């Protein structure tokens, strides 16, 4: 009975299983390249451990550089996943079904990468345990540690639970690593009871994960806004960071979707409509982002506090102007232009907009962290910051881990939730129909 | 009491110190003689303080060295030493880095490669001394004792006397000091007959107007002047600083007046014009105590122009303004302020004298003091009494020495140049190179680094190469001693005896005793003792010139004179309270001691002796001129030019006078020549910018470049570390598209240097300034290869009256380096 269903699934969703069982030469080449970059970054980090943070481009007063920029950036990207997936699930958006898994994977991988960055940034990583032994709960840095840990835990669980039925399917197909799948499937047989429990668990997590996710980026923003530094000491940083995070998250998700659609031929699952919807969401976020940025700088300029003004001027017309206007271009001009017109809102259009946004949001993180430090309140000459090879290598390493993470994941688990697709096919239509009835007048519709 | 309490036994460093020792391993940390390490390892230590004198610069500050179990661990200012009253400059704080410097010459060294190749092999003292004394004996046997030279730096007091005595007994007139203070005083000799650097009573003056004298940052004793300056707030003293680039002194002045380089004299004379025209000068003083103010008639009936007519005729404010670039309104303001404030004092130094017209400029500046009657008055210009040290008897010369001493000194300038001094490094290099009038066969180098400092680098290098045997007493191998054949390393100042008396420009008589606070760390010897040893080895009257066995004994001998004079007092507790009072009341308690030994012990304990009471002076002591007055019209200069004219040998003496004046680069004619006047500097007009070097406090003479902390601090005000920069006005920078931190080429007719630009509003547009002190090619790991030496692109020009180098007479162009 079960077998039969599976069999039929296999036929229908063969494309989703294929990456697990078939590995092309391209995979090894690409994987090899990323692995090489990753190993190089490890070596560079080793050099940093041996010699000290001197190998970076940081100095006084620019005491934070790429590592903290990338930390904020990666954690921001992580909002792609769990948060978006949770919101879509919660709002019962049916089109979410092929997307959620990828979104959740992004979160898990990127959180791991982002979460490591503050450790990479430590002058004394060997004393990391001091955080536990003598941690001060009053420090925003400790709030961060706490909320990132919580988010990471919740996200991995939230990724894992919906994977159980799929893992069971792979287990049942036999072949490689059956023991692993057996273990991970946790005795899933697809009984109604199990389904009920699973759904209940997912629903609880879904609700929990949203505030946790929001807290993560709010707390990250607090790292900056809790100080008195010009350009940092702002009350809207919390929502500004969260909005930015979701913004960059969606863009990252879109990029991942487009790449896998192409590479693994998911055209049947990831359709125009997904990109339309997510594109619209990206457009909305771009406008929200602009609203926050505008408010942030407008209030700064009107206040005209000299130190604040100095920093703003450095961004507007000084040495950081290139980054600042690049950010505005990437985060607002490009996405709004592309996504507002149906003509441009093709998949490639969306891809361009998304890439622009990811770059733009990275620039935003940079433009928040570095200029404030480079231009301290004291009358010191403008600080210089030129990231070193080590920092670039670790940045590239972070991106490689992201790619490798996905590649490895794709080798073991389906990138699109098979059972949810099935569920959508079987129950979805009926459910939507019912739902529509529930909020539209009359029953006539169904009769048409 | 105070000192005793500090001698208490305490844990060697306590908890944190223990960490330090354990963590690093004692032997590694303490690269010291084994017996000292053993002592330190025991853990508990005794803290003690030992007083001596800092000798990292001529400033002569009293310091105390903190010793733990006999190991020096830090220094601080001696609170009771009158020169610095506990203060120090950043350089002095590095005293221990000089002591422990890894690049010291640790044993006698013999050159094992070509000259300048930097290859050395250690030799024993005995071998080295044998080589030198044999060579000395040979030269003497040949009756060529005058072919031995000694190039010192700016040693004063006993060391100078000691070397003189050696050279005299040996029989050579060729003892030179590369940076003789006397060269700084030519203007005072001409006007006042004084060959000492004057002291300025900054504490009591109400207005201080300085023409380029950077007395807070450089000068002879920056800490002494800083102490005095620190009272300007409670005493309402006004400071005006006139210079082309704002120095540290300018930064602290109430008013900074930028002036075009090479025109300080014109500005001073413009001010003199206003003082005279508005009758703001001290008529009484000018009438009774000066010569040549009004027009005058000499004893042959010749009519002469006086200072007054000359100034009124030539230096009206508009003209002075045109020359100097200072607005006439400013000149009027400065003059009125000066004329209406008593007492006031006018200083000249630094930029004002560092040019081809330096002597005349300084004469013009100092003549303002005469106009205002500032000389030998409280709040004015003072000349300080010499300390009553006991002098050694004249040496007896044997016939060889007598012949040698009567030879023409080899560095004596050509007939028409440097009429007031007998030495310049320029003539030294030329004559040694040309072996004129005879070759130099042996040269001793004592301290100093003439090659790094000098402008005629190539000539000097070639001159050094001509000398058979060069013996350097340096404690660190520097650019000059790279050319030596033997290094007989001296102790550093914390390991040796010396006497540091009457630091120039300090306003009272004093003697500081520098004594070893630690046994020598390396196999080095005191140069004074080495000279005694060499003299003994040569023997005869040479050896007999040194009846005492050590330099230390000679110091003691000299100090007997101080003891016997009954004047002054050992610098002990209480000085600070009396510091201000003494000047007002002159009430000074003179200490009495039961015996010389007691006096000597107290002297060592407290670091020195001083006497703030100035002797009453007769007019002829203050003005040692032919007229016995302050001479606006310098008869001394007249006589010396006349002597040159008589020697010049052209058919008519008027032609001779022209010849002489032209050779001396004097364009003025008539009586103006002998009056303070502005002598235009002949700049190369094809270059647009004036290039001036300047000094920074952590490393003014380049001597501190081997101290890493001073290298880190080198440009602390400009936030430049270990590196040179060129200061340039933003307007000028804009003309050449130069931005902050751009790399630029600074090019003169001599050469070019690549430096980073620093834009500054505190510099005259069209003037660019590069700090001096970096750009070493030798002198140890910390000095070598950092920054540039501006002297390497400065034209080889001199003030031909005083023989001082003209550092500011070069023009440059600047281009963006790609």
């Amino acid at each position, binding site marked *: 009975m079960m077998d039969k269903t599976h069999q039929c699934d296999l036929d229908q969703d063969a494309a989703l299983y294929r990456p697990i069982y078939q590995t092309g030469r391209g995979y090894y080449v690409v994987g090899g390249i990323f692995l090489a970059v990753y190993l190089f970054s490890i070596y560079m980090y080793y050099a940093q451990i041996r010699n000290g943070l001197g190998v970076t481009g940081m100095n006084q007063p620019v005491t934070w550089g790429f590592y903290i920029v990338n930390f904020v950036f990666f954690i921001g990207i992580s909002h792609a996943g769990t948060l978006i997936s949770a919101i879509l699930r919660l709002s019962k958006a049916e089109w979410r079904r092929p997307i959620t898994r990828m979104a959740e994977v992004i979160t898990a991988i990127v959180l791991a990468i982002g979460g490591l960055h503050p450790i990479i940034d430590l002058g004394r990583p060997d004393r990391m345990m001091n955080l536990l032994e003598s941690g001060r709960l009053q420090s925003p840095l400790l709030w961060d540690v706490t909320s990132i840990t919580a988010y990471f835990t919740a996200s991995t669980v939230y990724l894992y639970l919906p994977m159980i039925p799929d893992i069971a399917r792979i287990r049942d197909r036999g072949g490689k690593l059956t023991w692993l799948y057996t273990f991970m499937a946790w005795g899933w047989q697809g009984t109604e009871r199990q389904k009920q429990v699973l759904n209940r668990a997912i629903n609880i997590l879904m609700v929990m994960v949203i505030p946790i996710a929001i807290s993560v980026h709010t707390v990250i923003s607090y790292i900056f806004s809790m100080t008195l530094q010009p350009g940092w000491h702002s009350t809207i940083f919390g929502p500004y960071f969260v909005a930015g995070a979701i913004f960059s998250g969606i863009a990252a998700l879109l990029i991942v979707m487009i790449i896998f659609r192409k590479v693994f031929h998911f055209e049947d699952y990831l359709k125009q409509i997904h990109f339309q919807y997510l594109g619209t969401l990206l457009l909305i976020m771009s406008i929200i982002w602009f609203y926050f940025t505008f408010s942030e700088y407008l209030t700064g300029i009107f206040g005209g506090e000299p130190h604040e003004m100095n920093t703003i001027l450095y961004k507007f017309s000084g040495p950081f102007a290139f980054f600042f206007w690049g950010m505005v271009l990437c985060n607002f001009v490009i996405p709004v232009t592309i996504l507002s017109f149906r003509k441009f809102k093709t998949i490639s259009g969306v891809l361009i907009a998304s890439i622009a946004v990811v770059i733009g949001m990275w620039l935003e993180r940079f433009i928040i962290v570095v200029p404030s430090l480079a231009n301290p309140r004291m009358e010191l000459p403008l600080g210089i910051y030129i990231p070193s090879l080590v920092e670039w290598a670790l940045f590239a390493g972070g991106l490689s881990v992201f790619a490798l993470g996905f590649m490895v994941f794709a080798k073991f688990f389906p990138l699109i939730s098979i059972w949810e697709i099935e569920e959508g096919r079987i129950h979805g239509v009926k459910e939507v129909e019912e739902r529509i009835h529930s909020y539209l007048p009359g029953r006539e519709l169904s009769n048409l | 009491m105070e000192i005793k309490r500090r001698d208490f036994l305490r844990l060697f460093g306590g908890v944190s110190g223990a*960490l330090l020792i354990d963590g690093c391993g004692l032997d590694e940390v303490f690269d010291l003689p084994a017996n000292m390490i053993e002592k330190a390892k025991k853990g508990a230590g005794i803290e003690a303080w030992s007083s001596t004198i800092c000798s990292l610069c001529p400033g002569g500050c009293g310091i105390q060295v903190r010793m733990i179990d006999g190991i020096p661990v830090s220094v601080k200012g001696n609170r009771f030493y009158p020169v610095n009253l506990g203060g120090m400059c950043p350089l002095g704080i590095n005293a221990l880095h000089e002591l422990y410097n890894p690049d010291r010459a640790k044993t006698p060294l013999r050159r094992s490669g070509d000259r300048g190749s930097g290859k050395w092999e250690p030799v024993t003292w005995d071998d080295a001394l044998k080589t030198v004394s044999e060579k000395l004996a040979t030269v003497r046997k040949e009756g060529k004792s005058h072919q031995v030279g000694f190039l010192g730096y700016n040693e004063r007091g006993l060391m100078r006397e000691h070397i003189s005595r050696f050279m005299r007994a040996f029989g050579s007139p060729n003892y030179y000091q590369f940076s003789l203070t006397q060269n700084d005083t030519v203007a005072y000799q001409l006007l006042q007959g004084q060959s000492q650097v004057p002291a300025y009573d900054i504490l009591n003056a109400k207005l201080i107007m300085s023409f380029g004298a950077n007395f807070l940052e450089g000068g002879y004793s920056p800490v002494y002047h800083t*102490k005095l300056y620190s009272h300007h707030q409670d005493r309402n003293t006004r400071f005006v600083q006139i210079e082309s680039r704002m120095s540290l002194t300018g930064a602290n002045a109430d008013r900074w007046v930028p002036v075009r380089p090479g025109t300080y004299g014109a500005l001073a004379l413009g001010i003199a014009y206003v003082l005279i025209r508005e009758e703001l000068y001290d008529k009484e003083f000018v009438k009774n105590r000066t010569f040549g103010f009004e027009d005058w008639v000499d004893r042959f009936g010749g009519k002469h122009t006086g200072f007054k007519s000359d100034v009124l005729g030539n230096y009206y404010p508009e003209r002075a303004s045109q020359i100097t670039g200072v607005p006439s309104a400013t000149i009027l303001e400065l003059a009125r302020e000066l004329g209406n404030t008593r007492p006031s004092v006018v200083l000249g130094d630094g930029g004002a004298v560092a040019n081809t017209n330096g002597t005349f400029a300084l004469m013009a500046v100092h003549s303002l003091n005469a106009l205002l009657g500032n000389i030998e008055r409280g709040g004015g210009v003072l000349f300080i009494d010499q300390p009553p040290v006991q002098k050694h008897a004249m040496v007896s010369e044997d016939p060889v020495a007598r012949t040698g001493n009567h030879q023409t000194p080899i560095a004596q300038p050509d007939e028409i140049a440097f009429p007031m001094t007998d030495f310049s490094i320029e003539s030294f290099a030329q004559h040694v190179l040309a072996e004129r009038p005879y070759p130099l066969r042996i040269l001793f180098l004592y301290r100093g680094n003439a090659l790094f400092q000098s402008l005629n680098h190539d000539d000097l290098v070639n001159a050094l190469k001509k000398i058979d045997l060069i013996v350097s007493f340096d404690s660190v191998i520097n650019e000059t001693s790279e050319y030596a054949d033997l290094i007989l390393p001296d102790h550093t100042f914390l390991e040796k005896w010396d006497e540091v008396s009457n630091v120039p420009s300090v306003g009272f008589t004093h003697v500081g005793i520098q004594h070893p606070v630690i046994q020598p760390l390396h196999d080095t010897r005191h140069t004074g003792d080495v000279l005694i040893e060499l003299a003994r080895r040569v023997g005869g009257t040479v050896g007999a010139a040194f009846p005492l066995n050590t330099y230390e004994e000679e110091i003691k001998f000299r100090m007997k004179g101080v003891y016997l004079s009954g004047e002054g007092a050992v610098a002990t507790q209480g000085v600070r309270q009396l510091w201000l009072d003494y000047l007002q009341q002159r009430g000074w308690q003179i200490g009495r001691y039961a015996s010389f030994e007691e006096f000597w012990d107290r002297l060592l304990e407290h670091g020195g002796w001083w006497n703030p009471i100035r002797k009453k002076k007769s007019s002829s002591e203050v003005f040692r001129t032919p007229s016995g007055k302050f001479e606006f019209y310098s008869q001394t200069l007249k006589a010396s030019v006349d002597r040159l004219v008589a020697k010049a040998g052209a058919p008519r003496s008027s032609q001779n006078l022209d010849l002489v004046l032209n050779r001396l680069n004097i364009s003025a004619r008539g009586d103006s020549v002998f009056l303070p006047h502005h002598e235009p500097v002949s700049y190369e007009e094809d270059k647009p910018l004036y290039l001036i070097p300047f000094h920074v406090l952590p490393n003014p003479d380049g001597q501190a470049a081997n101290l890493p902390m001073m290298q880190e601090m080198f440009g602390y005000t400009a936030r430049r570390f270990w590196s040179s920069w060129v200061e340039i006005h933003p307007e000028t920078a804009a003309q050449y598209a130069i931005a902050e931190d751009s790399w630029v080429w600074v090019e003169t007719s001599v050469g070019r240097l690549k430096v980073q630009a620093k834009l500054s509003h505190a510099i005259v547009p069209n003037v660019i300034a590069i700090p001096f002190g970096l750009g070493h090619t030798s002198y140890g790991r910390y000095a070598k290869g950092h920054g540039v030496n501006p002297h390497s692109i400065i034209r080889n020009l001199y003030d031909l009256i005083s023989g001082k180098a003209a550092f500011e007479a070069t023009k440059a162009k600047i281009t963006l380096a790609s």
Partner: protein
Amino acid sequence: MPRWAMVIDLDKCTGCGACMAACKMENNVAIVDSKEAQAGRALFWMDMITTYEGEYPTVAAKRMPKPCFQCDNPPCTKVCPVRATYRNNEGLVAQIYHRCIGCRYCMAACPFTTKVFNWYEPQWLEGANKCFNPDVSVRAVGVVEKCSFCAHRLQHVKEVADLEKRPLQDGEYVPACSEICPADAISFGDLENKDSAVYKLSRSYRASRVMEDLGVEPKVYYLSKRVS
């Protein structure tokens, strides 16, 4: 409890930098080599701020030696995740070098840019690291450091006072920078002691603190006739 404070008289201070050097020597602060120092990593617990006011030719220069201001309400200690910097009950803001994890958050949070970091293993005079002050520990790579108000000297004078069974006197606890200053521009003492020199000077009409509006309550006062 005393509240230790410093008063720097800018009308006396010439900007000579002796305090910078004395501080480095006293506290075993590493010497940073050429490349590093030029990259903005020079280590000065006592720094020098130079500013120019006005346009040529009426330019005035202002030099301001800057130690840690030892804020009573220090933004730097608030953010430290491991309490490696804290304000003790005598108002001294201290660093615990062996606990610091090197996150540099306190540096980012200090409005006065007074903290410095050991980017590399610290270095001193090569091959001759022997003139360390034995009273002050040396730091390791990767930790933050800053002016301590020479707290070890407080320890020292307290020990002496204890031995002699008497209370500390005004002027007994003198940091190295204050001791060496050739202009006597740096006064030091207890603000709680109304007879102390610093208390009186801190009340002078010339006294002000840097960026008082931030409310971090610096305990370093500057005296100047010029309005700062």
